[in-house]
């Protein structure tokens, strides 16, 4: 396989052949760690730190992230790694040859919003850094919009290399995780008594509710990785190669860096290290750490924009668009939001965390139930790329109504159990979380509707792998 053909497949959204998938476990782990370790971890930690003390918050968050990752790897993992496709292509057997736009919309909105946020964080860190080294006056001009635009330009240039760009840059940026560990050590070693004694500011009177909320936040945060999963693991050749990197590479950085956020909000009342690094660490360490914090956000945003561009290839009108133009389509909304409304985005990040759980928990449930229960692992790669009305995954008008209804049922379950904006809960949330019931309800509704309506109507090619036959 020539490099140009592989590059075209990478940028063209085609399935990658096994011979082209050259990432081993370490290569994949480095890319995933680079993708997952960023300022959003501090924000996740901040939310948990509002309800739980340091140790219990860390344990709850760790458990939640591991549960979230198992849902992600079981949903998008098998189809993506077998056929070398990204997450959106892998959802077509369930949602249909046109219905995939529903999860694609979730993916696009989620990635655009998160990455706009990350690039704004990058810009803020850069501003702090320039101020710390004296290149910018303390009360100087607001340069965040300009720094955000600059970051978008750098990401664009790097991603012109496609996945090779991700490979090259992640080899360097992964080092910022070490800076995160150092920040955690600094906070824990210098403020341990204060940290242990600190009380969560918004803790509920119900201890179980606080604890379950910590687990739920971990699950929701990691469900976001569904968007990124396929674009990364399709570069690896087998399930065995991806398992450890995905389970550890995308969850360990989240909960380790989230501990910094928990510690920050408990004792300093602010989770973003760029706000307290100079105070706690002093000028020298502060400048070094700020550099790594900025770099971490840059790496994550880069992987996110790459995943967005790869996913956009599924739109018919964008299939033949040059990679350079497609990247612009992916990056322009991020640049637009990041430069024109940075403060508004910054103030509404909590909504983004909530959005992830509501949207991706039902998607995970539907995909897992379809792959393991209904299709018994049989997926037709040709049908994934077949848009004709006679195609196996065309269903009705290209949409599988069972998936749509199951998605609605899963979202409704989540919102009923935990209002993602106010964190007001109902029913069995304190025992079950909101994401897990949403997964189970969406999966159950999907299986029931498929058995009752889709299989008898001979849609979706279930007769090939259905346990009913």
């Amino acid at each position, binding site marked *: 396989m020539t490099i140009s053909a592989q590059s075209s497949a990478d940028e*063209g959204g085609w399935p990658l052949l*096994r011979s082209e998938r050259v990432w081993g476990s370490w290569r994949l782990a480095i890319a995933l760690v680079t993708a997952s370790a960023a300022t959003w971890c501090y924000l996740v930690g901040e939310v948990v730190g509002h309800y739980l003390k340091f140790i219990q918050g860390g344990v*709850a968050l760790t*458990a939640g992230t591991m549960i979230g*990752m198992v849902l992600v790897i079981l949903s998008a993992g098998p189809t993506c790694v077998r056929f070398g496709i990204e997450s959106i292509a892998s959802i077509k057997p369930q949602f249909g040859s046109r219905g995939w736009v529903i999860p694609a919309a979730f993916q696009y909105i989620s990635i655009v919003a998160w990455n706009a946020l990350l690039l704004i964080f990058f810009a803020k860190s850069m501003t702090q850094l320039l101020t710390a080294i004296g290149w910018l006056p303390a009360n100087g001009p607001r340069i965040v919009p300009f720094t955000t635009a600059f970051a978008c330009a750098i990401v664009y240039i790097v991603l012109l290399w496609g996945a090779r760009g991700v490979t090259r840059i992640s080899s360097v940026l992964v080092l910022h995780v070490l800076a995160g560990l150092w920040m955690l050590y600094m906070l824990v070693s210098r403020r341990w008594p204060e940290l242990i004694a600190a009380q969560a500011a918004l803790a509920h009177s119900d201890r179980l509710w606080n604890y379950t909320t910590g687990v739920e936040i971990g699950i929701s945060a990691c469900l976001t990785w569904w968007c990124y999963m396929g674009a990364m693991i399709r570069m690896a050749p*087998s399930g*065995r190669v991806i398992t450890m990197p995905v389970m550890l590479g995308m969850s360990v950085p989240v909960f380790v860096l989230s501990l910094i956020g928990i510690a920050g909000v408990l004792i300093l009342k602010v989770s973003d290290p760029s706000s307290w690094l100079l105070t706690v660490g002093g000028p020298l360490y502060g400048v070094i750490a700020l550099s790594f914090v900025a770099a971490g956000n840059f790496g994550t945003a880069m992987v996110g924009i790459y995943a967005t561009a790869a996913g956009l290839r599924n739109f018919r009108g964008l299939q033949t668009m040059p990679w350079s133009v497609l990247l612009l389509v992916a990056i322009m909304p991020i640049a637009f939001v990041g430069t024109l409304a940075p403060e508004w985005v910054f103030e509404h990040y909590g909504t983004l965390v909530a959005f992830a759980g509501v949207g991706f928990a039902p998607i995970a449930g539907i995909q897992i139930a379809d792959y393991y229960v209904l299709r018994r692992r049989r997926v037709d790669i040709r049908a994934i790329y077949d848009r004709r009305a006679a195609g196996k995954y065309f269903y009705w008008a290209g949409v599988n109504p069972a998936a749509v209804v199951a998605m609605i049922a899963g979202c409704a379950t989540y919102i009923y159990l935990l209002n993602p904006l106010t964190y007001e809960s109902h029913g069995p949330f304190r025992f079950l979380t909101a994401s897990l019931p949403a997964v189970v309800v969406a999966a159950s509704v999907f299986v029931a509707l498929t058995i009752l309506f889709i299989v008898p109507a001979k849609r979706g090619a279930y007769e090939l792998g259905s346990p009913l036959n």
Partner: protein
Amino acid sequence: MAYASSLSGFKDGSLQGDSARLDEEAFCFIYRSRDNVPEPTHRGSGRMNDSSSRELERRIVALESQSETGDDFDAVSWWWIIGLGIVLPLGLIVLGWFV
């Protein structure tokens, strides 16, 4: 079948650069039937579409033959998935409650 004969050509490269007949066959065997060949989506870039379709088809055929398909999770993978994704979190949840 048309797509079967074309496949050997694509594999050994002998059909590269052939004419409209090739393009038509390549396009046909994506859709399995000449009766259902759709109109090109982008009329202004038909050459690019045909080229893309041929490459996509080559990949699909290779994946269908299982020769270029990645492996699903094996027993070792499942061991780690269950251990790290179910057993460990359950243990942590119980442990964390008593902290």
